[in-house]
Every structure is written in structure tokens, then in C-alpha cells.
């Protein structure tokens, strides 16, 4: 058990490609951190640098109070779970679990005890004498987890461990990983490209893009206050609607359609406006509205996703299935639910409708034009 401090870490490959650019993350003891981002964002590289499978080009990584830049992977006191499990195919499950301990010269009795304990925890006791090929995907994943657990490491590193499982199993394994980590209290670093996995597992999540950190924060904070358009479109499903808008006094123009904000926010004329699909609602008669031209709908059961266009720009709204869908729909949104981003840099602009602390403001009625 230990904290992990990643300080200004960069990875520069031969040829000058910078896969990770000066990343700093401080991970508290026992924290579950998820690195999330699209493929090629450097999240796996970062994890592999912590694991010692890739050399660290610049910066330092500390586990506990020890700088481990030049320490062999085996000496770093970490355990890793791989995407394809990486079980030794010729060894039984027992030997797979015990191999790392044997190499460390752990006494036989202790190996037995630890393997038995991990097997019990993961409910793989009856498979201990089997070879990995005789196991299903989920069972193999458990064995891979077991191999990490028996080592009692300072930190677990997960490299997309659930990507090879089918959807249903993924959900249940996700729950198990979360529970296990809480029970063991081991610091964990988890890499995934699946934002849902990131949201559900993380104590804090780190959104990476192009080798740089876009945002670090608690899942809900990241969801509700994305730091950039990239985070806004990456976290959450369906992705946040991003529309180019022009502010004119109190009004926000989306092409020919207008939303009155009630007051003048202090930012330049051109902005990118972010709208969560679930923040849109049907406008009551007489209320100001944006007119959505409906293209198609997606039924999700609990809600219905309505895809359409506002003045030629794509927009998705999440509505109750009870609402009847016409060819056009009048939609409205409370101004404080809008997200504003700089039109050029994509960075978040200060929320002009600051909600006072501790008070959940109902949707503001927008004064009729």
C-alpha cells in the first residue's frame, strides 16, 4: 500500500514522437484512479512506465517514497493485469498464481496460504489444477486478478482488463473489481478507453488526450464541469452536444435560432455551447424554444434519444418515452445548465450563471421574448 506520485513524466520515442507530455498525477494511498482517453492518447504508455515495462524519458515516478525510474519491474512492488490476461498457458492456475511468489523465494507454506486465500476471494478454488485454456474468459480474468492479488503489492495496474469480455460479463466483473479494490484498499491505476467503465470505477479519473492531461477529477465533477470540449464529448453517453453559438447581448444565436439567457455573460461573441442531452426538455407553450428537426430516434427503454438538427447542426436530446415525437420538437434548457467553451481553444469558460453553494436551483423560467 502506497501513494504514487507521477511528476512531469514524458515519453519520447526514438524519432522524437512524444507519446506522453509532461504528465503529473498524485495518487493517494488506496485511491482508484482511472486513466481514460481515446486510443493513442498515451494512457497505456503512462501505465507501462509506472510498471517499468517502458523506460521513463523525463520526469519521475515514485511509489511510496521511493523513486522507481530505474528499478526493475519485479522490484517495484506492483502487480499488473493485462488485457489478454497473459496467463502462462502451460502452467496450472495454481502455478500461475504461485509463479511470482516462487521467484521471490517465498516459503512454500506461505505460497499455499496466499494462493488459497486469493482463490477463495475470487471463487476460482475448483479450477486451481486446471490449465488456462480450460477456462472461460471470465475465469481467466479472475485468475489474472488472482495473480495480482497474491503478491500483495503496493499498487495494482490494470491495462484494459475487461476489453476482451462480453458486455454482460464486463458489467459484473467491473463491479467485482471495484469491490475487491475497496476491500483490499490497494492503490490502483486503471487504463480504459471506455468512459462508462471509467465513470463507474474511478475515485478520480484522468482524461488524457494526445499525451496530455485534459482533466483530473471525481467522475461527477468531470461529468458536470468538463474542462474542455474534448472532455465534454468524451465523457458521458450520448456525448455532450457541442454547438457553435454567437452571443449578442442577452441572447445566444444558433444560426437563425435564438435563446434568451436573461442576462449578459462576460465572454466574447463566439462560443462553443455544450448541452447535455438529458438537460433538454420540451418547451411548454409560450416558452421560448429551439426547434429541433427530428431525424431519427433511438429507444433505450428508460429514455429515448432523439437525434435531429437545429439550424443544420446536429443535436441529440434524451427525452422520456412518453413524450410523443413529432417532425419538429420545441426544446428548451435552463441557462445555468449550459456549458460554455472558448470557440478557439475549446477550454471551459467560467460559468456565468454561478449556482450558489448547497442550493439546487430549479430550472429558471426564461422570460418570454
Amino acid at each position, binding site marked *: 500500500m502506497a501513494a504514487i506520485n507521477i511528476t512531469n513524466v514524458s515519453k519520447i520515442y526514438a524519432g522524437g514522437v512524444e507519446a506522453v507530455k509532461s504528465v503529473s498525477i498524485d495518487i493517494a494511498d488506496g485511491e482508484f484512479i482511472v486513466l481514460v482517453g481515446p486510443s493513442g492518447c498515451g494512457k497505456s504508455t503512462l501505465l507501462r512506465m509506472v510498471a517499468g515495462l517502458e523506460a521513463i524519458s523525463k520526469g519521475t515516478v515514485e511509489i511510496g517514497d521511493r523513486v522507481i525510474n530505474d528499478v526493475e*519491474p*519485479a522490484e517495484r512492488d506492483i502487480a499488473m493485469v493485462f488485457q489478454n490476461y497473459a496467463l502462462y498457458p*502451460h502452467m496450472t492456475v495454481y502455478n500461475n498464481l504461485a*509463479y511470482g511468489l516462487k*521467484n*521471490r523465494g517465498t516459503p512454500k507454506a506461505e505460497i499455499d496460504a496466499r494462493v488459497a486465500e486469493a482463490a477463495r476471494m475470487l471463487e476460482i478454488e475448483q479450477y486451481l489444477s486446471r490449465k488456462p485454456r480450460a477456462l472461460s474468459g471470465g475465469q481467466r480474468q479472475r485468475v489474472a486478478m488472482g495473480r495480482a492479488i497474491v503478491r500483495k503489492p503496493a499498487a495494482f495496474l490494470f491495462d484494459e482488463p475487461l476489453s476482451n469480455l462480453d458486455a454482460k460479463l464486463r458489467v459484473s466483473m467491473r463491479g467485482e473489481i471495484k469491490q475487491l479494490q475497496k476491500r483490499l484498499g490497494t492503490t490502483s491505476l486503471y487504463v480504459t478507453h471506455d468512459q462508462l467503465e471509467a465513470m463507474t470505477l474511478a475515485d478520480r479519473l484522468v482524461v488524457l488526450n494526445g499525451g496530455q492531461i485534459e482533466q483530473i477529477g471525481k467522475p461527477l465533477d468531470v461529468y458536470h464541469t468538463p474542462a474542455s470540449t474534448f472532455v465534454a464529448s468524451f465523457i458521458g453517453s450520448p456525448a455532450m452536444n457541442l454547438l457553435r453559438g454567437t452571443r449578442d447581448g442577452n441572447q445566444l444565436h444558433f444560426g437563425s435560432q435564438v435563446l434568451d439567457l436573461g442576462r449578459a455573460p462576460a465572454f466574447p461573441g463566439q462560443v462553443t455551447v455544450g448541452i447535455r442531452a438529458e438537460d433538454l426538455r420540451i418547451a411548454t407553450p409560450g416558452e421560448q424554444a429551439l426547434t429541433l428537426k427530428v431525424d431519427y430516434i433511438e429507444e433505450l427503454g428508460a429514455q429515448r434519444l432523439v437525434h435531429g438538427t437545429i439550424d443544420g447542426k446536429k443535436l441529440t436530446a434524451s427525452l422520456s418515452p412518453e413524450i410523443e415525437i413529432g417532425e419538429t420538437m420545441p426544446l428548451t434548457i435552463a441557462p445555468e445548465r449550459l456549458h460554455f467553451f472558448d470557440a478557439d481553444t475549446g477550454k471551459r469558460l467560467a460559468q456565468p450563471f454561478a449556482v450558489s453553494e448547497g442550493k439546487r436551483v430549479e430550472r429558471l423560467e426564461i422570460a418570454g421574448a
Partner: protein
Amino acid sequence: MHRTKLFDHVILMMGVFFMVGPLLVALMTSSHEAADIHRNGLQILPGGHFIDTYTTVLTKQGGFTGKITGLRMMMNSLILGIGFAAGKIILSMLAAYALVYFRFRFATITFWMIFTTLLLPLEVRILPSYEVMNTLKLTNTYTGLIVPLLASATGTFYFRQFFKSIPDELLEAARIDGAGPFKFFIDVIVPLSKTMIAAIFIIMFVYGWNQYLWPTLMTTDESFFTLVRGIKQILLVWVGSNIPDYNEAFALAILAMVPPVMIVMIFQRWFIKGLTESDK
């Protein structure tokens, strides 16, 4: 499922006839007397001298010096075949391991240099090799027979391709589990290569067993003669009115076939797996 029809059986029977037929003729002919064979040609029915001939071949002291028996030759062949196959496997596995897992400079060029020697048959370098062995005074030794043939481009190539197909994560997992290069090789690579080793072993054993030119060059001492040379030796006595011991030559040929056939039969399950299996 395809239902076996008469035609399929015909094809199979023809296969059996063409492949087993000559062997049967050799076996049957070897049980006749030499003079009989000389007069009447090849035989398809058993003669009455099966046991005599094979006992003679295995135990009679023959050859120029009159000191070498069939058993001795068979032992020499086995030493050559097994030493050759085992040595090649060890050497080419280590070479391939270095080529795949150690990123040293020029690894790819080194590999292609090794690989191109595949194109060169042994005979191309047979004189220089002989010269080297002669200078080292290794003619007429097992070392001299085996060692110069050990470097194997084929073996290195097969093992390299095989090692490349082993997922990198296995190496990474082993590194995190605290296995060094040597431990990883012994604990993971060797057990995983089992079927591959069996396949290469068969190929190399048969290749070594059938070596003719190199043993002929390297050994003048008859106690190092191999079976393959022995067969030739029997037929060399055709001087004056001597009739070569055809029966013994045939018997020896049959005997020379037994060990490779057995090796193939024993290892064939692994052999097929090694060449076709892709599940790692």
C-alpha cells in the same frame, strides 16, 4: 461428414501399395540368400534365412579391418542423429531467443544473414569445414562428426517465428513476476516450445541419421562408421567373382529405417501439433 466411398479406398490402397510395397520387397528379399537374389532378382515371398541374415548383419565383424558390426554402426548413427538433433535444437533455440528477445544492434541483419545461409547446402562449405576439423584434430571423433553441422538456419528460423508468435504480455507478466531472462527461457519459453521442439527433433534426427557425405569425409576409422555408410560398404566388395551380400545390404537398409520410423511414430502427435497449432 464425408462418407467414405469405394473410390476413396482405392486411392488409399494405391498409396499403401506404392509406399509400403518397396519396403516389403526389401524386407522379403533380405530373407533370401545372396546367390539366390543374384540369380532370381528381387523377391516378394519370404525366404528361409530371415534370422540368419539379421543376426549376421548385426553381429558379424565386417568391414575392411574386420572389426565393425551392424550394432556398432547403428549406435554410431544414433549418436550422430540424436546428438545432431539435440545440439541443433539447443543452439537454434538460444540463437532465436537472443534474436527475438534481446534488442541488440543489427539483430535483424544478423537474422537475415543466418537466414540466407539456408540457401547454401552443406556441400558448399564441406571442404573448409573439413579443413577446420582436420586442423583441430577432430577427424574420427563424434565431436567432429556432430559439431560442424549444428548451426542451423532452419531451426533458428522456425524458433524465431514461433517465439515471435508468443504474446509480448507473457514476457511482461514474467518480468513483473520477477523472472530474469534465463528463468523466463526455462520456465516459459521451453515448455511452450515443446511441440515445436518435437517437430524440429524429428526433422533434424532424420536429416542427421541420413547424413552420408560428411561422415564419409570425417571418418576413416571404421569404428565411427554409420549405418548409411555401412550399406554402401557391403556393396563395394564386388571384385572378381565375389557376389555382394545383397541380402545383408537389404537387411541393413531395413534396419537403418527402423529408428527414424520409430521416432516419427513416437513424436508424431506432437509433430503435427507443433507444425499446425496456433493456440498459445
